[in-house]
């Protein structure tokens, strides 16, 4: 039976370089570079190569093995690293598809506001040769 999953449920696992990322917002944006062609036969859309961006943001955790240390290691290294995302619900035991791939950081910002936790935004573009992440059902 199809079920909906709350993103805040325990069991949602998002990793970068095999280290769990803790945040408030995770996203995966896939798009195709389709091309529209208008000719005297009408309008035609030619399917183009896909690409994707994975993003996460929220309040930043510091310390050994933390999200902060992991994101800096990835950003400063300048090399693509493996990522995974598996929304699953510990409460219902539902195993959902695992998305995975390799990505290279485009941007990473850290913001300090008075009376608020330190927050971050991170975005990386997939470097997978197909332009799409792998989706595995289990």
């Amino acid at each position: 039976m199809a079920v909906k999953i709350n993103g805040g449920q325990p069991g949602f696992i998002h990793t970068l370089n095999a280290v769990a990322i803790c945040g408030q917002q995770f996203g995966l944006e896939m798009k195709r570079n389709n091309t529209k062609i208008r000719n005297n036969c009408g309008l035609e859309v030619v399917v183009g190569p896909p690409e994707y961006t994975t993003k996460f943001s929220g309040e930043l955790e510091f310390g050994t093995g933390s999200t902060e240390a992991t994101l800096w290691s990835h950003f400063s290294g300048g090399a693509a690293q493996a990522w995974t995302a598996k929304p699953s619900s510990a409460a219902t035991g539902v195993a959902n598809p695992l998305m995975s791939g390799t990505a290279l950081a485009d941007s990473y910002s850290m913001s300090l506001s008075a009376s608020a936790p330190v927050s971050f935004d991170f975005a990386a573009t997939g470097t997978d040769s197909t332009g799409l992440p792998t989706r595995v059902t289990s």
Partner: protein
Amino acid sequence: MAVKKIAFGSKIYLDEVELACALNQASVDMKRDNKRVVTIGCLDTIPGPVMSGAKFSGYSEWGALGFEETLEAKYRAGSTVNFMMVIGGTAGDVCFEVVGPLSEDVHSWPAGDLLALSGAVPDGNTVARQLALHVGTSITATGTGTGQNVGATVSGAICVVTYRVLSVVGSGTVTFATEESSDNGAVDTYAAISGLGATFTAVGVQRKTTTSATKAWKRINRAAFSGFTSIVVTISVGMQAA
């Protein structure tokens, strides 16, 4: 254990001036100019250079060494500034540093509200992540500070030390050395890292780098101290994103 931190209490510096008491917003924006390449045959991503910047804003604090005077002087000089956030504001905390020219000096003078001011270092500069070894530490004599596991750097990586002398009482000279050890001096005795020393005769900021391999544990040695009654320093050590 990983912990969240609130921004309140963090130290934010523009060169040798602490701005934290005037600011209510600060950020470091790290970017890489990666290129997504689509050719006839394949998709590829080419890693690009680091192009980072920083922004900060708050209340237009007036007077000697206030936010307004500091930003105005540095903006009009057009020279490179050293912007740093010490997140948490104590020794051992993570710091992020951006070095570049100021691109903005924006004044806002609304009637019925506090005067506001903001500045920015534009995207396009390098960024370094460091750990604070000293934050607002008062020094009155020679000696060594507490070592911290900052992390080893391999040959070719850029190890950065940023020295800030925030204030001085009297006139004199102080010389710092950054020392390294693989085990906090337990067996491997601390020794100075070549090229990372600095000497001050007044307030200021000095940034030293080396691409030689360095050991994980680092500490600051006040190798020489004369003339001054006391000085206050903030010193951080880390690595620059390549």
